[in-house]
């Protein structure tokens, strides 16, 4: 913000203060249940509503709980694979829809909405029936196929939104300057859509790692994911062990983000557009 701007708009700082306050409030809202979750993972009593004492016991139990560890592993494998595949395919199809006219364009766009519209329970039941008809044994593979099938839309929709209204002139300028299609993409389009792609990838990872309904239909022997495992534990009675595993996962992701932030801090920012 230049001096010129600051002088012209005294209300800007009040705006900024309000927006900052609102953002803090939203973060508080987002993390309130998380705080509860973490605090109660140290609760001595089995019933989560009453606080009886501080203990690390549940964490100790957790590390011996092979079922949970296997479920965490399964979830990460599925979510990572799904994110990679859907981000690639979804970005590609978003580009095709935005930049080209081709046969089946409208149908593809409409088809991409279906996974978001059709209720998960129907998707799950449909996939189970399909796998049965196709004689595909249920397992981690069927879970990944199911996740990819219904997550691809999320990436496509978010990247489409990013592409829409993107200034074509930059790409045209690159073409005028003699850049081939691939070069123009790599050096102009991709950086411009990257925040959208990342947002889409984050969305898919989130959806996949916590999906219960569809996964419950298509999981088989040894392919229990974390949401399935937690659900089965909650059904019997909420033990703080479940809170403990969530806290640990949270810690792991926070550490990952902190590392990424360190890297980012040294080299610049996420935005692909120079601030003028």
């Amino acid at each position, binding site marked *: 913000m230049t001096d010129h701007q600051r002088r012209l708009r005294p209300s800007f700082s009040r705006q900024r203060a309000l927006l900052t306050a609102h953002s803090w409030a939203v973060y508080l809202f987002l993390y309130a249940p998380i705080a509860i979750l973490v605090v109660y993972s140290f609760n001595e009593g089995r019933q989560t509503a009453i606080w009886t004492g501080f203990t690390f016991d549940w964490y100790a139990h957790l590390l011996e709980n092979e079922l949970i560890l296997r479920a965490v592993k399964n979830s990460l494998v599925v979510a990572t694979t799904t994110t990679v595949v859907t981000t690639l395919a*979804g970005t590609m199809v978003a580009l095709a829809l935005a930049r080209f006219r081709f046969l089946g364009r409208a149908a593809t766009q409409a088809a991409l909405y279906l996974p978001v519209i059709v209720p998960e329970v*129907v998707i799950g039941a449909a996939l189970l029936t399909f796998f049965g008809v196709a004689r595909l044994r249920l397992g981690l593979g069927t879970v990944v196929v199911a996740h990819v099938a219904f997550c691809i839309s999320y990436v496509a929709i978010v990247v489409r939104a990013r592409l829409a209204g993107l200034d074509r002139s930059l790409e045209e300028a690159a073409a005028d300057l003699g850049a081939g299609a691939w070069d123009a993409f790599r050096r102009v389009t991709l950086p411009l859509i990257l925040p959208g792609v990342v947002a889409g990838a984050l969305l898919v990872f989130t959806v996949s790692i916590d999906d219960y309904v569809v996964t419950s239909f298509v999981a088989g022997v040894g392919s229990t994911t974390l949401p399935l495992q937690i659900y089965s534990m909650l059904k019997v009675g909420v033990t703080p062990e479940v809170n403990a595993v969530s806290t640990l996962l949270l810690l792991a992701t926070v550490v990952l983000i902190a590392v990424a932030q360190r890297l980012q801090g040294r080299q610049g920012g996420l*935005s692909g557009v120079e601030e003028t």
Partner: protein
Amino acid sequence: MPDAPAQRRRLGAYLLALPTWVILGGAFLVPLAIMLGLSFAQRSTYGGIQPVDDLAAYVASGNFLANYARSLEPTYLQIYWRSLWLAVVTTALCLVVSYPIAYFVAVLAPRRWKGTLLALVVIPFWTSFLIRTYAWMLILRTEGLANTVLLKLGLVQAPLSLLYNDFAVMIGLVYAELPFMILPLFASLEKLDRSLLEAGNDLGAGDVSTFFRITVPLTMPGIVAGILLVFIPSLGQFVVSDLLGGAKTVLVGNLIQNQFAVARNKPFGAAIAFELTVVVLLLLWAYAAYARRQGNGASREVLL
């Protein structure tokens, strides 16, 4: 334009779309088609599908529409209306809550922190949805965190009934859908050209005016994407109303879930689900037509 590059470009389009075609076609549309077929069948005595001996007679008699007919009875219409209403309110609330924070992270935050702040929005959703919802139950209980704080601060004299009602369901739904609104908004806001905003100001537009006449239209694609990603899944939600609502409300999601999981009436459940799908697709098509007429190319581009 010469033919060869144009053809190469079209080939490029097909190549780009191919993986999605394979995935969607094989793993999604085919299963869905099977389900659609089932929606015209009837439930057998123990929850299977009644085999149809004479297909022609079955179709001619109109029986194949039995499930669809049943789904239009008053009991069920009431459920659809309630779900629609709840989804609209949830989406509106999400939008109002998300826009400022998306704006803050995309426009006002220092570039170094953008990625982190965005990730911080999403991280809570990498923990189990179920546990988070249970945590909300702990917060909203009569003796829970919310009431304790309110009582301590003297804002209320007696504990409020915050759980097992529509209020709790609303909180749960907004909470569950928030990142699906924030992320698309962020993607759109992030590429906002700030110089346009300054230009607006230089020309004498106030802040509110600038916001509604420049910012919002420019970020319409993100808004539309966010609305799609929040409104539609809200219609199919059932866990929140089961836990936070005390399972005392039946939304479309509960209804469908019930048919599949308990009543074992897949055909009826499938019929309702496909009706829901058709209605939403019609809404999308109507909005696309409206946007086209408004000349709002950007949002039309998102939809078509």
